[in-house]
């Protein structure tokens, strides 16, 4: 039973890992970022490429992926998203287009494959990420065999969630972000540089997705389409938790993960997935703003 609960916790942590960045870009900025999954994918490819070309392991890839995807996010915000604030559906279409561009860029090796040049670690194929020996296998805790890599993901997710909480609730920039969530015009009137804060927030959300990608690369398959299904799960978590609420995302990820784990253990994974969708639909019907909606006037 302990193992089942642990798997549920692990599923929840994976959901949260992807949802953290979304909670910021979607929750705080009102941008439906369909390219979020591709940021996860880029993070995974940073792990692959740094492993091949720099010979470094997964720990080095974490800050590296954060920087790469944050810069990419900054670029996307500056070039496209900035022009679309307040137009929710347009952000969806535009970022979806960006997602396809990024996918194809990786698949076609930034166009080099047309010239017969092959970069190891890119292209349409499946990529391999090697995981250090001490993160493979199990350790025994309280009589249960606990999967080390999953434990590692839970720890990293917890650290990231705490760091995000700290940034949003304990720093000046975070205060400004929260002010912008509540009322962008009033925030601007109080002297907050809304465009600058928005750009940084988007970069932060993208960077978090990049770190999620590094973690995913260690136990899922790395290939250009890998991010697409993840972004759906991420939106489920954010919508159920309540847009703009970090705590909501944490709780809904945990609840969905445990439901998935328990139902899968009792019946099978296909049914578990259906039950998860059912629960999300029920919650959206009963509480349209999610579990932890911001109260406002």
């Amino acid at each position, binding site marked *: 039973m302990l*193992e*089942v609960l642990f*798997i549920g916790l*692990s*599923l929840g942590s*994976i959901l949260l890992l992807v949802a953290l960045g979304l909670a910021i870009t979607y929750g705080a900025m009102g941008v439906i970022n369909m390219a979020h999954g591709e940021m996860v994918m880029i993070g995974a490819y940073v792990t692959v490429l740094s492993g091949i070309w720099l010979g470094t392991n997964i720990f080095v890839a974490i800050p590296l992926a954060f920087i790469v995807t944050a810069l990419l996010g900054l670029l996307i915000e500056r070039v496209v998203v900035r022009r679309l604030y307040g137009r929710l559906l347009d952000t969806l279409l535009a970022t979806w287009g960006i997602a396809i561009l990024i996918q194809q860029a990786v*698949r076609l090796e930034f166009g080099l494959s047309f010239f*017969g040049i*092959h970069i*190891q670690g890119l292209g*349409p*194929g*499946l*990529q*391999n*990420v*090697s*995981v250090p020996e001490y993160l*493979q*296998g*199990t350790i025994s805790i309280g009589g249960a*065999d606990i*999967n*080390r*890599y*999953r434990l590692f993901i839970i720890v990293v997710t917890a650290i990231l969630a705490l760091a995000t909480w700290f940034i949003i609730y304990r720093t000046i920039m975070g205060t400004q972000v929260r002010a912008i969530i509540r009322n962008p015009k009033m925030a601007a009137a109080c002297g907050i540089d809304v465009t600058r804060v928005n750009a940084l927030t988007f970069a932060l959300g993208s960077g978090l997705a990049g770190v999620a990608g590094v973690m995913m690369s*260690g*136990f*899922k*398959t*790395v*290939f250009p*389409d*890998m991010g697409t*299904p993840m972004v759906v799960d991420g939106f489920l978590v954010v919508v159920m938790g309540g847009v703009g609420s970090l705590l909501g995302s944490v709780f809904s990820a945990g609840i969905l993960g445990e439901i*998935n*784990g328990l139902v*899968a*253990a009792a019946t*099978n*994974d*296909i049914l*578990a*997935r259906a039950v998860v969708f059912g629960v999300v639909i029920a919650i959206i019907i009963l509480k349209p703003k999610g579990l932890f909606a911001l109260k406002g006037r």
Partner: protein
Amino acid sequence: MAIDRRRFLRNGLLVGSTVITSPWVFQTGAQAAGEIKVGVLFSLTGGLSIIEKSLHDATMMAISEINASGGVKGMKIVAIAEDGASDPKTYNEKASKLVIQDKVPTVFGSYTSASRKAVLPVFEKRNNLYFYPTYYEGFECSKNVVYTGAVPNQQLSNFIPWIIKTLGKKKFFIVGSNYIYPREMAKVSKILIEKNGGEWIADEYLELGHSEWGSMVNKIKGSGCDVVLSNVVGDSVVAFYREYKNQGLTHDKLPICATVTSEIEIAAMGAEYAVGSYTSFPYFQAIDTDINKAFVERYRAFVKDPKAVTHHALESSYFQVFLWKQAAEKAAEITPVAIREAVKGQEFDAPNGHVKIDPDNLHTYLTPRIAQWLPDGQGKIIDAYKEPTIPLPYVAYGETPTNLFCTSKGLETAKLNKT
């Protein structure tokens, strides 16, 4: 160089007379003088392009090799490549285009059963010919498809008895992706398991492309099985093997015996996760013959990737073009029906060994092999049939070599209904 006027005149006359006599040749539709057009239809984009691009490359390589050695009866093969885009509907449209507009007498293509089923009506209605290179679930008897991959009996009829007798494992946990191929494979497996005195304790499925294996592996762990039979397909394979090791299961105590895990998936997951597990296929990159080693070298040179891996469906994509070439040379005319009649009984020395098209069901005689995966990501072939074995696409429904369901007359449905 000065042009000799007399020679100029003579050449002019020659050219002129060729032009006058040749319109008949030029006007016979697709078959312009000295060339044969064929269709090549694989997904070059979308999720399946990972595998299908390699099948496309192998087909193109075979065509270029045939052209380099003189073509078909002196005619050059011209490949018209189309992109199935990992989408059955697109497959159907592209197949129609190749058959109706380009008037090709043969198309090579498809990886998934879904895409084959999508193009089947096109080829049956127009009485055209399709060459399908992938191992699949059987249960098909089309006169317009030549199947050069393995059918269930060529992957399982050696594998299950071997697991029970040689490995001494009797309790099977069957796991697969949730669609027709793994389900048909499970059906055949259960027949064979019971016949050989084993038992199966679970038969579980996960969505295609699912990569969250925590619960399933935990279930395997608690089930009390002593062997796992995996029909898991695609990128799920990688997540499965990784989770398997990460939950503390080892292949020496509880081996995964797989029917789909190939060199491609092993390379992606990292060989350390698969070391000691088994796969059954007619072809492995590690087959130790000169013809196969040369094939691997040529393929790597062709795709300009010194680390490219070869696998079963890729090898079938390659040798089926040669079987087609032999049939086209034997056939009186280059039409789909003539080629199909000529391909019956064709034999060829492929990288995997001797192959032969069964004259009745148009499937291929292949040599079943079992390999154990080594730390370098290659299989060590530890068991193989001495000779190619007959393809039985209806083995799950009681087909035997002496009682064929699918013959040159078509499917005998009466036999099918009895079971």
